[in-house]
């Protein structure tokens, strides 16, 4: 009954072997370029990010994230922006009282590409990087452990709360709580479900704080690391390439527009 408590997919692939910082650099290089460079860059980067998923051998899991999380959100954004953005000269079609202009469809497409790059690249990072390794590497490079803790617990909290919510749902349904019939009954069912979830999570946070403190979390001494995270020459090369790429894409924005 092992529940997967994070996005990480434990297999071996070139992306899995990369140093976490390299992947993090990739994420930020993609995001910064997509949002701040010349607008046409975003769709190209979206394709690049999409292809990266294949190097990571996480296509199956990536597709799940794509279909369930990213696609519905960006489709909604695309439609809303296309229809409701003001202005625009070249009318393509009319939806009721609203005009869909070519300029707006283009703007919507760019926005959607940017969001796609952002969410997708993060998804690839999380799918191919064990959270502990990511944090161990960043802490070794000087990230304050407190901050690392905040990040890592955020990554873990959603799947954990999901599991907890499931148990609470079972417990309340066993007490005759109707969560399946009319809308009104479902709305009324929220309090008995959210109450224990919020309270339980608060208690958990406190207990965890005590537990890690008992193991010397704030001890001022230099700490050793459980994980040896390799950082190869290839890693450094990729990182510098990404940094230069980002700088160039920013320069393109300044000079070309």
């Amino acid at each position, binding site marked *: *009954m*092992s*529940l997967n408590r994070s996005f990480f997919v434990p297999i071996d692939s070139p992306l899995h072997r990369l140093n976490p910082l390299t992947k993090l650099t990739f994420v930020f290089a993609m995001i910064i370029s997509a949002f701040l460079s010349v607008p046409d860059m975003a769709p190209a980067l979206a394709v690049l990010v999409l292809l990266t998923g294949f190097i990571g051998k996480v296509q199956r899991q990536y597709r799940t994230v794509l279909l369930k999380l990213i696609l519905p959100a960006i489709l909604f954004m695309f439609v809303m922006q296309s229809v409701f953005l003001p202005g625009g000269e070249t009318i393509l079609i009319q939806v009721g009282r609203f005009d869909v202009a070519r300029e707006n469809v283009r703007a919507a497409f760019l926005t959607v590409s940017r969001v796609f790059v952002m969410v997708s690249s993060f998804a690839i990072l999380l799918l191919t990087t064990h959270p502990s390794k990511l944090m161990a590497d960043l802490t070794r490079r000087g990230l304050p452990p407190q901050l690392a803790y905040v990040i890592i617990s955020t990554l873990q909290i959603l799947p954990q709360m999901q599991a*907890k919510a499931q*148990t*609470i749902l*079972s*417990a*309340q*349904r*066993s*007490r*005759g*709580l*109707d*969560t*399946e019939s009319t809308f009104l009954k479902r709305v009324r069912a929220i*309090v*008995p479900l959210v*109450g*224990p979830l919020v*309270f*339980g999570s608060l*208690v958990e946070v406190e207990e965890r704080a005590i537990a890690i403190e008992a193991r010397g979390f704030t001890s001022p001494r230099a700490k050793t690391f459980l994980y040896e995270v390799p950082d190869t020459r290839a890693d450094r090369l990729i990182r510098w390439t990404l940094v230069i790429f980002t700088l160039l894409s920013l320069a393109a924005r300044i000079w070309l527009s």
Partner: protein
Amino acid sequence: MRIEIKDLHFTYPSGVQALRGISLTIESGEQVAIIGQNGAGKTTLARHLNGLLQPTSGEVRIGYWDTRRYSTAKLAARVGYVFQNPDEQLFSRDVHMEVAFGPKNLGYPKERVEALVSEALEMTDLLQKRETNPYDLSPTWRKMVAIASVIAMDTPIVIFDEPTTGQDAATIERIANVIRVLRERGKTILTITHDMDFCAENFERVIVMSQGQVLLDGKANDVLGQEEILATTYVEPPQLTRLGKRLGFKETVRNEEEFLTALQKRWRI
């Protein structure tokens, strides 16, 4: 109310085969303890009884209701289930409201809800604490609130999932008393437990599970006497039972009374 389980198989989505062919009948008014090592499938089995889990194959009937045809909310009128961790169900401002939640859900008239709540609070020694916020109580008392909130539903079947874990002697005695009262009222009781003394002292029938199957099922004395078979699922008979064995008693003893009787019998010879 009779529980009938026929060739029940269950596989979790992760691929773990938790139950592999369980067939059981529990008659109305029986008190049954389910024991066995961690991961033997005890909780998985119990969760089939009120429809929280649906059989992969086979069937579960609660007094002629096939659990596949009724929602958990409906089955709640027949099967009360006390979860292991009370914090996963307590949400109300005070103990009284919390305990009234179940019976209200079942649609009982107001007077009956009030009567059932008072009765449940009395059985669990919570009358003095009815105005308290459950979260201001100690974990021990929160457990009692969780128990009261299920008893108040007045279901013919009550399931307890490890009720005595982490509780002191006074609380265990209180829980044993609740079970005694429920027995007198003719309720069917199923308890999952690792507490062998609690099992030996309060239950007439014991079911031992191992790797998703029923290993032993029978009268408490017969089951607890089979030390070797119990050992295969990492269950140790209660201390007195083992001592009785070492002393060479012919019959299996499981509580002080039986032990003393057997001892006197030997001295007289």
